């Protein structure tokens, strides 16, 4: 276990002196996963609000499908995006394979169902409370959806962070469509997988540390948001 101890202290040192490779990888990870989370919110939140407020034939099927898609295996998403973006695929002409953009696309597909399904749940509960009042106000569907999204804002921050958490922690999709190319598409999770398999534990551990700290900070932020909201009875 001496190796392990040495690796751990080296990892700590890498983090402390903000090693260039390490920082580059962390920043790329954040860029990819934050972009994916943002896109997933832009698509998923209105979709969730629509499903919460609207009643139409086949709504149940859509919701069941969406809930099932929450459990999409990242490698399957990676494979599907790969098939589309590879040179022989329908979108091959875009030349996006093995770029950060491809990784953003894959992660967006992965977490949009999570954001949509979770926000649908949150907003449906709120809608049950507001629906009659909104109809008495004579609001349009669009006005109702906007109001639901705004009034559930604190719960929806939690939902979007859940999506981001899933994106930043997944390996399969970004590995397949990104290719884990050094200085181009190497993110924290793919780097950890590679460095561990090569026996380079220091960098892997350092990245693991950063990931853990990120996860903890996100949870702390969620908790802070919740407590603030509850204090003002907005939750």
């Amino acid at each position, binding site marked *: 276990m001496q190796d392990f101890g040495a690796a751990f202290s080296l990892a700590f040192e890498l983090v402390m002196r903000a090693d260039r490779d390490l920082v580059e990888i962390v920043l790329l990870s954040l860029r990819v996963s934050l972009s994916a989370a943002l896109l997933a919110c832009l698509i998923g939140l209105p979709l969730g609000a629509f499903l919460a407020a609207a009643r139409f034939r086949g709504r149940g099927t859509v919701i069941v499908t969406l809930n099932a898609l929450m459990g999409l295996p990242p490698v399957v998403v990676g494979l599907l995006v790969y098939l589309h973006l590879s040179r022989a695929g329908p979108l091959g002409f875009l030349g996006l394979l093995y770029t950060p953009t491809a990784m953003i696309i894959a992660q967006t597909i992965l977490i949009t169902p999570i954001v949509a399904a979770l926000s649908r749940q949150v907003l449906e509960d709120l809608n049950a409370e*507001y629906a*009659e009042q909104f109809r008495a*106000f*004579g609001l349009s569907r669009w006005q109702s959806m906007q*109001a639901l999204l705004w*009034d559930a804002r604190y719960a929806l921050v939690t939902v979007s962070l859940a999506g981001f958490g899933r994106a930043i922690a997944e390996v399969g999709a970004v590995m397949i469509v990104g290719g884990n190319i050094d200085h181009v598409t190497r993110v924290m999770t793919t780097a950890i997988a590679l460095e561990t398999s090569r026996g380079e534990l220091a960098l892997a551990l350092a990245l693991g540390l950063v990931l853990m700290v990120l996860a903890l900070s996100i949870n702390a932020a969620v908790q802070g948001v919740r407590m603030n909201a509850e204090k003002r*009875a*907005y939750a």
Partner: protein
Amino acid sequence: MRDNVVQSSVPALHTEALRLEDGNHCLLDDINLRLCADGITVIMGHNGAGKSVLLRVLHGLIPPSAGRITWRGDALTPEITRRQSLVFQKPVLLRRSVAANIDFILRARGLRDEALRWDALRRVGLLDMRDHPARRLSGGEQQRLALARALVTSPELLMLDEPTANLDPGATQMIERIVTETAVQNTKVIFVTHDIGQARRLADDVVFLHKGRLAEHSPAAAFFDAPKSAAAQAYLSGDILT
């Protein structure tokens, strides 16, 4: 004969053979009403008599199974619903500040006049609380905010569904004062209550429902002194005895 209160002025709300069924259960049957354009009409009746349901049908929230509703001569449309306000027994307030709750309905109506907001809050005595989270208000304050929100759009018709059922006497008095003031300012008021004392204080005319049917519609004085229907007689005497 029961319409003499109405015939003294122009009828504003008119229902013809209004009927509402829920499955094979009849919630409202053969409701023919002619309410005049001003004053406070109080709807009374036992629990389950159909008071709240009638209010929702009149506001267009529940489409009737049969019959017709007209407001000032026009059949009920979403456009007319937007010119009316309904206050529920339990106020549904947005998770925002007091002022933002008023702003919400102003924006939805395309009204962007700040003065309206302050007037409405002043009218219900909540101006000092404007920045408070609405859902941290007391029950009485919440209902006053709901009332301010209902009034800020200057509705032609204000409907209230037992707005003081959960409130203490002081809060009830404030609500009654605001409603009375509203009624003299060109807004027709329909007020649902099962509180006889409150009905006596507010009513210009009384609509009494019994098992989903219109048992009686009389001017307030006549209704309380000498109710014509057996159901209303039993209701009034029963409550006096207890």
